[in-house]
């Protein structure tokens, strides 16, 4: 225990001790990764108007109709998503306000939802929104997500959490997206690109930069999450209904 503690404290001293401060009296403060309060900016303030367009309004009404009228606010999550899609992939304060108005709920209740879930982007994102999974299965599977992360970083010249200067790419690290059997993987917009290698990653990035849309799915050529070494079971033709039954049931 004491060894661990001294080890820890030595790490601590090495990592965080600011110059001229003794660790005895102060500890560093851990700030959150993103801001959980809103600050008015010229691109994100309540005066920028946002309204659902006709098509989305129709969709919104369909979504609201799924819930009993007194629980209209249950539609807040799909509506925020709808708003985010219409608003170039990010949920501005105006989108949240529009949803609150549509659902007749206090604005703060919408803000709570929008800040709770990580997939509502509260800052603008580029058209190609790269979300690289770096959770353990992706870190271990295939070539490992660390390599993909380095590839993307060096190829685009940005760190996770940043956008490229040309405004084409935004790159973030995310937690498990549920495609572990095809690790490593990343999500671009709504599409999964799986079984990545540094080479295929660069190919995808180049295609995206040109405005093309590479084929989503495993980049290794296999079908979904089939065994890449070929099928070992269920290789024959599946039998039809009643094939092995008594004649009267065939």
């Amino acid at each position, binding site marked *: 225990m004491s060894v661990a503690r001294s080890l*820890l404290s030595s790490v*601590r001293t090495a*990592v965080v001790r600011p110059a001229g401060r003794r660790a005895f009296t102060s500890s560093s*403060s*851990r700030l959150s990764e993103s801001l*959980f309060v809103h600050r008015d900016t010229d691109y994100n303030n309540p005066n920028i108007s946002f309204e659902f367009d006709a098509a989305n309004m129709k969709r919104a009404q369909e979504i609201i109709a799924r819930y009993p009228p007194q629980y209209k606010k249950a539609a807040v999550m799909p509506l925020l998503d709808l708003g985010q899609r219409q608003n170039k992939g990010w949920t501005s304060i105006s989108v949240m306000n529009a949803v609150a108005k549509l659902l007749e709920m*206090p604005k703060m209740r919408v803000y709570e939802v929008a800040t709770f879930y990580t997939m509502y982007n509260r800052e603008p994102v580029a058209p190609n929104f790269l979300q690289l999974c770096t959770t353990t299965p992706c870190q271990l599977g295939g070539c490992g997500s660390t390599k993909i992360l380095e590839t993307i970083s060096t190829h685009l010249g940005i760190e996770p959490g940043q956008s490229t200067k040309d405004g084409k790419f935004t790159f973030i690290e995310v937690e498990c997206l549920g495609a572990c059997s095809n690790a490593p993987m990343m999500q671009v917009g709504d599409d999964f690109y799986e079984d990545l290698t540094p080479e295929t990653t660069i190919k995808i990035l180049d295609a995206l930069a040109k405005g093309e849309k590479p084929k989503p799915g495993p980049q290794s050529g296999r079908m979904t999450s089939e065994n890449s070494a070929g099928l070992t079971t269920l290789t024959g033709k599946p039998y039809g209904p009643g094939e092995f039954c008594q004649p009267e049931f065939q």
Partner: protein
Amino acid sequence: MLRRFTAGRSIARRLAQGQAQPARLFSTSQPRKADITLTVDGKEVTVPQGTALIQACEAAGAAVPRFCYHDRLAIAGNCRMCLVEVERSPKPVASCAMPAMPGSKVFTNTPLVHKAREGVMEFLLANHPLDCPICDQGGECDLQDQSMRYGSDRTRFHEITGKRAVENKDLGPIVKTSMNRCIQCTRCVRFANDVAGVEELGTTGRGNDLQIGMYIEKTMDSEMSGNIIDLCPVGALTSKPYAFQARPWELKKTESIDVLDAVGSNIRVDSRGVQVMRIQPKINDEINEEWINDKTRYAYDGLKYQRLTTPLVREGDRFVPASWEHAMDTIRHGLQSSGAKGDEIKAVAGHTADTESLVALKDFINRLGSENLTLDQSLGDAPPVTGVDVRSNYLFNTGIENVGEADAVLLIGTNPRHEAAIINTRFRKSYLQTGAEFGLIGEDFDSVFEYDHVGTSPSDVEAFLSGKAVKGKGKGENDFARIWKEAKKPLIVVGSAVVEGKDGAAVLKAISKHVLANEKKFVTPEWNGFSILQRAASRAAAYDAGFTPSPTSTNTTPKFVYLLNADEIDPSTIPENAFVVYQGHHGDLGAQFADVCLPGAAYTEKSSTWVNTEGRSQLGRVAVVPPGASREDWKIIRALSEIVGSPIPYDDIIQLRQRMWDISPTLVRYDVIEKPSLEFIKLGLQLLSTPPSTTKAASTTPFKKPINDFYRTDAISRASVTMAACSKAFTKKEYDIASVDEAGSAQASYA
């Protein structure tokens, strides 16, 4: 997210009393839940079904530590401090979120429980700054107290990335935030949403980044915001005006009564030496529960400024300090040389006059042969249209405690949010919990419940109550007229401004006719749906004591005017050449007209009786001594009566209270409401429904709100710096939210 338990403190009270409330349960339809029995620490305890386990433990006398649980708020169950062991439960359970089960065996004092709570405490302290020495909550901090019991003396938690840091929020001139100290119990969020009606407060982010705030930069614009400071179990929300002023153990605590509105909220005055340091709510389930409004809480600094500390005599165009003898003598001369006889002697009683001084002043003026006793209100010169013979004609008969039972409420010419903020929270509660519907005839206001605006003027009252469709209304399912007809327990709340207004008699006639026509719904043994909402602390007592003019007495032009705390006075009612005496505690409006100012005591400085809008008399207590040469008000009047030569016949407070008993026993039956008989209530309503034939028909002039600036309504709050800041921030909406950088530079990084 939030679950609701209806069983609250009332259960504990019922248990303490050992029986249910008599008589009323028989005829009301309130369900009475079956009682269940369980064992807590080997002790059997019986509680109503549906009680939270933590309440059952309390009832058994076992103290359970808690942060998020509060018996007047919804249950969140997020702090986990109240873990207890329940037999045959695989792990400790959060007793606040667990209903008590019959026959279960609960242990609150076992090694498992201690270990669990210590674990919770360790997690809480992992991110809590160690800044108790500079924290205002120190000494009354739940976290501090409970860490004495469950906290470890050293940390096992060395987070390399550091402690969680959250930026402070600027909620306005009342609430000071230090968000690093927050433990996310969400009591403030639940209070703001459920009680105060501030739906802008919430939680943003998740997990370790969860923080309390409004997301956008905004102040907490509510007249009840100060309560979140009391609710906060740590020092995250502290009081801005009281910041770094005192420690709780230095303060002398005096339980008293608030007089800044007519609700009569029970308060605790915390004082140090001769100074009131702060005012806190005192629990009274029948009136203010556990809340007080911001004016009650923060107008106390007005007690330090603009005070009259010595008698003042006007010489030319200036006031000269004088001795009591000189001042009294000047009044005697003034009275003689003014030549005032009979009704030419006029007394005006203001909003914050206590009952004792009202009775003494009435006796004094009557002894001088005058009936000219007026009130400091518009048309205060005329006898009140409600009359003073039947108490139920001018009181809030329904009772503050019972307003939640109403299923339809018609507000006439009143804004309860400003005139009685505490009653307004009860409306909010019934709006949320029982689905009460509200209608308003009068000026629109920023409400914490939805209402149907069914009219604006006295004639609209007549039209609405006679069932005629009000213009532009009467459509749709949520039409209030239909709800009103179908209501089982309707409640009419008439604002004091209506009664004082020109159309008072006509409006009351329409209302009383409606009430009498539907008396089965309005006036029953358990329910009285006709209530007048007073807004001045002295008003009910003035009516009770008969401090009203006789019909002819005000026809004279007064030559001698005695202003008792009268600071809302219309200057045109004071004749140019009259001799004017002002008795009061502040150099506000009334003192400007005076020839002699007599310094009285403010409500924290005298032990006096106050009758609230329900007619409940309560005794305020002395917290600090009156400043300078000022004296208790009734004593000043007693002394003056002797000098003038017609002494009033009581020498001490006991004799005075006997006199009050003679006038009306209700004045000295403290803390209870005298319920009149049904016959008497109906008799009163009949009086109202047959006003004198001179009464004019109801006009179409819209009702006006009597209070435009909630934070500046009387001499005390007008002298208060905090109230001035609130008025600027919330009434005028001129508040610059301090930017985070500014706030950050003033803060050292501790711990």
